[in-house]
């Protein structure tokens, strides 16, 4: 049995924990405001807010309930569109959407309202960029988004005029969210967050891939939820090594001060990774064991030459991430084993970390090719290099040959051109829905070049690459 608060009602349920939260909301509780559109987390129409009590603080995140395991609702505050409604008026978010004609067919609208309301609950420094980022996982097919942008302008203006401290209570007092939010923190403190984690059950983290691949199977699956396992949710830097738990999400890392110390200027990377909702759900461990050849975080961590700590609950072993991938979706992980921790050496003053991702749609898309590297240069000579590339082979690819080629050499035009050739020999892309092999080879070269240009902006003219 799990317990949580759904809008303003305390719920205890014995429904199967593998059930998708949206199914619970729509079919069991008959709350029809959250819409089922894609069952892939690809549109945000089912967005809900999840309030979590951690270290005595209540914080909210938006998530797509269509692929969220019900197990992960345990001990949380689940807010659907119904939980944002006032009895006798519209909230400022809702009113702005109405006044700016930000809704047409209306099917995506509850999701937008939820995400925008979530922004109020998470920001303490409202900005145009921030509020738009809050709806980066919400798709609208009717409006072309411009009217929704105008609505966000209105919301921002109202926020800035009336809110100073951005506490839940201040938002309640100014009628941005309904009164029942006031007491949630106290009520959540009454609910135990303990949950049974049966060893033989199917391990689930955020559910962002399992629920896309096998939605019906998960409906009745016996699960072992590890999303909130405190053992897997730590992050620290010791002696220049950043170590973090595998259940941390991309969202957790994106917000982590420790992580941004480890990888400064990484904000642009998080923007390239899926959407706000998915980042809030997707665990790093899940990204790694998924073994997708184009997993963004996988490539990022490979480029940092990370290590992973694998556990079966009793024994632990540490291996290099580059040895983890053995073939297409074949990984060095035995029955009952799971990734516990990930660690990497943080860049120093002489080294540059670089990440690139190209997809059909610039944001909120799966990569065609992604690339990451960590290059250390002293006196214009490459002293260490680790590079990884995705989408050009059956596994997330660590570029052994290219790394070897670069180390010890002077960074100049010749090295760049010779590295192009080594790269092409090392990769083996195929044509698929994300692009042709020809394109992926071209892209691989360009992204490698982008890395060099990031280190040394004028070192190479791209004009040279145009066919004569």
């Amino acid at each position, binding site marked *: 049995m799990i317990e949580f608060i759904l809008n303003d009602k305390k719920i205890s349920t014995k429904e199967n924990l593998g059930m998708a939260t949206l199914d619970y909301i729509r079919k069991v509780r008959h709350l029809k405001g959250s819409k089922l559109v894609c069952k*892939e987390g690809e549109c945000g129409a089912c967005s809900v807010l999840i309030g979590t009590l951690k270290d005595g603080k209540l914080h909210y995140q938006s998530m797509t309930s269509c692929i969220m395991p019900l197990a992960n609702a345990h001990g949380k505050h689940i807010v659907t569109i119904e939980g944002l409604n006032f009895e006798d008026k519209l909230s400022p978010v809702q009113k702005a959407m109405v006044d700016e004609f930000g809704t047409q067919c209306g099917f995506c609208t509850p999701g937008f309202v939820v995400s925008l309301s979530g922004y109020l609950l998470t920001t303490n420094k409202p900005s145009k960029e921030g509020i738009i980022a809050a709806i980066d996982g919400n798709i609208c*097919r*009717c409006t072309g988004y411009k009217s929704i942008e105008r609505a966000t302008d209105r919301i921002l203006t109202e926020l800035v005029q009336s809110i100073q401290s951005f506490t839940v209570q201040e938002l309640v007092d100014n009628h941005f969210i309904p009164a029942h939010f006031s007491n949630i923190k106290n009520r959540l403190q009454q609910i135990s967050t303990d949950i049974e984690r049966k060893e033989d059950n199917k391990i689930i983290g955020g559910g962002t891939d399992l629920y896309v691949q096998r939605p019906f199977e998960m409906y009745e699956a016996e699960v072992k939820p590890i999303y909130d396992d405190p053992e897997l949710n730590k992050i620290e830097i010791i002696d220049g090594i950043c170590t973090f738990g595998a259940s941390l999400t991309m969202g957790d890392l994106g917000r982590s001060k420790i992580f941004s110390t480890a990888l400064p200027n990484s904000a642009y990377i998080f923007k390239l990774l899926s959407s706000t909702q998915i980042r809030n759900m997707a665990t790093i461990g899940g990204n790694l064991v998924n073994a997708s050849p184009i997993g963004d975080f996988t490539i990022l961590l490979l480029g940092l030459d990370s290590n992973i700590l694998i556990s079966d609950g009793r024994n632990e072993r540490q291996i290099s991430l580059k040895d983890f991938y053995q073939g297409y979706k074949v990984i060095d992980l035995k029955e009952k084993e799971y990734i516990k921790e990930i660690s990497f050496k943080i860049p120093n003053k002489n080294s540059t970390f670089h990440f690139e991702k190209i997809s059909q749609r610039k944001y909120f*898309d799966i990569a065609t090719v992604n690339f990451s590297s960590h290059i250390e240069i002293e006196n214009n000579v490459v002293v260490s290099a680790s590079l990884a590339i995705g989408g050009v082979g059956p596994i997330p690819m660590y570029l052994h040959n290219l790394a070897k080629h670069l180390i010890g050499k002077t960074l100049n035009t010749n090295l760049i051109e010779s590295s192009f050739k080594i790269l092409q020999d090392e990769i083996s892309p195929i044509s698929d829905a994300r692009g042709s092999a020809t394109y992926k080879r071209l892209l691989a070269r360009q992204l490698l070049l982008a890395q060099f240009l990031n280190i040394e902006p004028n070192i190479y003219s791209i004009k040279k690459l145009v066919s004569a």
Partner: protein
Amino acid sequence: MNNIEKAKKSDTYSVDAHLHVTGKTKYLDDLPELQGTLFAKVHYAKIAHGKIKNYNLEKALNIEGIVKIVTYKDIPGENQIGGIIPDEELLATDEVHFIGMPIFIIVAESEIAAHKADKLIEIDIEEKEIITDPIDAYKKNQFLSSPIKFALGDTENAFNNCEYVFEGTANSGGQEHVYLETQGAYAIPNADGSFLIYSSTQGPTAVQRTVARVLGLSMNKIEVDVNRIGGGFGGKEDQASPWAAMVAVSAFLTNRPVKYILERGEDLQMTGKRHPYKSNYKIGLNKEGKIIAYQASYFQNGGASADLSPAVLERTLFHGTNAYFIPNVEINAFSCKTNIPPNTAFRGFGGPQGMFVIEAAIHHAAKEMKVSPIEIQEKNLLFEKAEFSYGQLTEDCEAQRCWDQAKEKYNLEDKRKKVETFNNENDTVKKGLAVMPICFGISFTNTPMNNARALIHVYSDGSVGISTGAVEMGQGVSSKMIQVAAQSFGLSEDQIKLESTNTTRVANTSPTAASATADLNGKALQDGCDQIKKRLSDFFNKHWEITSNDHASFLDNKISIGSQSIDWTEAIGIAFLHRINLSAKGHYATPRINFNKETGKGHPFAYHVYGTAIFECTVDCLRGNYEIDSVELVHDFGSSMNKEIDLGQIEGGMVQGIGWMTMEELIYDEKGRLKSGNLANYKIPDIYSVPKTVSVQYLDTKGAELAILRSKAVGEPPLMYGIGAYFAINNAILAFNPNANVPYDAPMTTEKVLIGLYS
């Protein structure tokens, strides 16, 4: 912010929008389910073409909760759903023609049970050769309907007199509708053997007709009700019918309510999309850049059955020359039969595909002639009384005025210089500029469809209920209908209630399509209101003993004749007691229009809509991705009756067009399998991929007589602005690499951009 003066907001919009933003709107899947409701699920073909040898349903039937698995043999009426041509089975009998073709309907107590059974159905299909490319189909004489041709002047001779002649190919890809609400229907059997069908459809009458045909019942036994739908874009014009027919058959056979809401993956696999086209063109110009002759052949990828393809094909020809006058035109179109799902209506309805080709031809010519395409576009715009290839002459032609106003208001010349300077100063980032004029004809090109009806009840307390054949799908037609009634009676909008679209109240409706819904239904509604007003006017003349029998005026909640005046509510109460008929059925059939399909000549459109958009984009020449910086346009709304709603149509339609031209890519593999068969692989614009700024100017015009309240149709035309994005990006590539080889092959994906940059 755009520079539009804020129009008075419609209260009605706000009523609808209140429900949306609070999540209270009820769509099909939100209706309470009746006790005993069963769930249907389609088992569809996994092979694109083949003969069904045998099948075994036993294991599937053994799953707990399976009530029935329906095969074609169980269909009580005709196993036929083809709307224009009867060439489409509801359930496959002995052959399958595309991956996604329905074969069985699983009817179960729960969706989970249906899903389990689906996996256990065994079927043996002998594979046959497949065709996915329209040119292959053309070579093999595989057509869905007869070829059609429009001609004007003497093209053959005209080419001989041209200074320049260029030939080439231009292809455009398909487009998935991605209406957020998937297809679905809910059938409830009545005691007398009739059925109530809730359907997410743009065409309630099409659903009614199809269900009746499949059940072998007359149309009066089928009531179809549509409250509103979560997006349609053409995808639910004809293709909402099969699901309704399936739940109806299942309800017929089980005598229980049956519901089916398609999963997104099922919807993507089974339903048709915008037609991909392959086309050849030949364009001839004189020394000054005047287009003298134009020839084109369009090969439409129609899919496995006709659906609406013949009508879509025709509209490609209607818009083959876009907003240009060309004296000699010969254009031919072929609807090619292939083994992909039957393609269907999608905002623009074949028009965009035709326009893309003429724009490509102009771009090609400009490149060769070393002038800007803008010069050629500008020299060839339509003018008053110019003849289209189908014989209609322009009236109140706004092509030039839209162009001139856009050029002036947005400083086109200055913009061109700035882009040139930017490109001279930057090596790795290039800007591209393109202008996209549009001209789009309003009316169903199948003349008999241009009619509508409306039912109006004035209740004895003065409140008003209206029903029309229009389906609200986000385009704001509900607001417009309420505005029409409120304005007609001189009431406020909150006194009018718009009912659901229901075939029992309003019969024989045309689908909500062709941008013409507000015009047709609004005019029918006006007619109905006028009838009631006339009766009230006659009555009060008598009642007040006014001998001159003046027309009453209906303003500000009052009915007045001369110096006499009475409050509306009181007036209705009196009229009711005097047994005045307070209900009316309005009817409207668009006057003047005609089209002879044999000769390809006539006057098919009530009027045309014009506009001009200027696109500017920036291409990252290192990575091959791009951003649309701005779209600035002048649009001919006529005299807009609801500026905010119409602006939403412009912005939304334009962005949908940009999606079609840039990132939305449908890929079928050699087996006819849709590789972009989920939203992870098929990308539509997100908030970051839309133009950074969009400016919309209203052309100052009196509007068209045949438009409702002189407010021109606005649904489809803006989609075609999106074509400008393709050419802006193309021009940025050429700025980086003047010798770039960029075939005219939309969408302009990041792949094509990067390959083009380094070609």
